[in-house]
């Protein structure tokens, strides 16, 4: 188990009803975190439509996640 701080944004935050939480998770990658928190963000968007960051650095969905990391889950962006 790793202690991971998970942050939800926009639609994900509204669905989760919270902006962030500290969770003990059995995960290796950012994709694992997305899957493990599905009951929170409620998303069935393809992963390729969403983005992820680890400790304030943009990451990929196969990026490793370590104990103490902060994982930011971004729904599909829509700037401009």
């Amino acid at each position: 188990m790793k202690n991971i701080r998970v942050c939800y944004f926009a639609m994900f935050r509204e669905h989760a009803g919270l902006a962030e939480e500290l969770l003990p998770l059995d995960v290796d990658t950012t994709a694992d975190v997305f899957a493990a928190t599905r009951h929170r963000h409620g998303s069935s968007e393809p992963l390729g439509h969403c983005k992820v960051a680890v400790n304030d650095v943009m990451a990929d969905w196969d990026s490793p996640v370590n104990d103490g990391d902060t994982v930011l889950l971004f729904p599909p962006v829509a700037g401009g």
Partner: protein
Amino acid sequence: MVRITAEPIDPQLLRETLFDATAGGYTSFEGWVRNHNEGRDVERLEYEAYEPLAISEGEKIIAEANNRFPFVKAAFVHRTGLLEIGECAVWVGVAARHRDEAFKACRYIIDELKVRLPVWKKEHYVDGDSGWVNCERCSRSSGVSMSSAAAAKSSD
């Protein structure tokens, strides 16, 4: 310069920040809030950004634009918060020695920021409903995309 702000954008003031004696051309793009989208009447928009990464990703985009289309100065500003119809949601400005680089760099910056910046847009409709743009499947409780990822995980 990249800025994320909850204050109104003033393109005239921003334009002056790009003045340079070596620049012979200036191009700008303003994104405005329009009153409709995909057949629905829009009353206002609400933008949310994750500022630390919006700024770092924005600075990367500007550096990439400068590598491809060398300019003298470039900047963009993106709004957050509630915006009314006609308000400026994003401003991009590029000053370059010649017009070609100014046009191309400006186009590159707006195109990239729309797909890369951690910014989200919620439409508030005239009928009282609201919805996040590009997020049609964000809150369905069932789907296949992640269950297949979870299956891949459990098999290794």
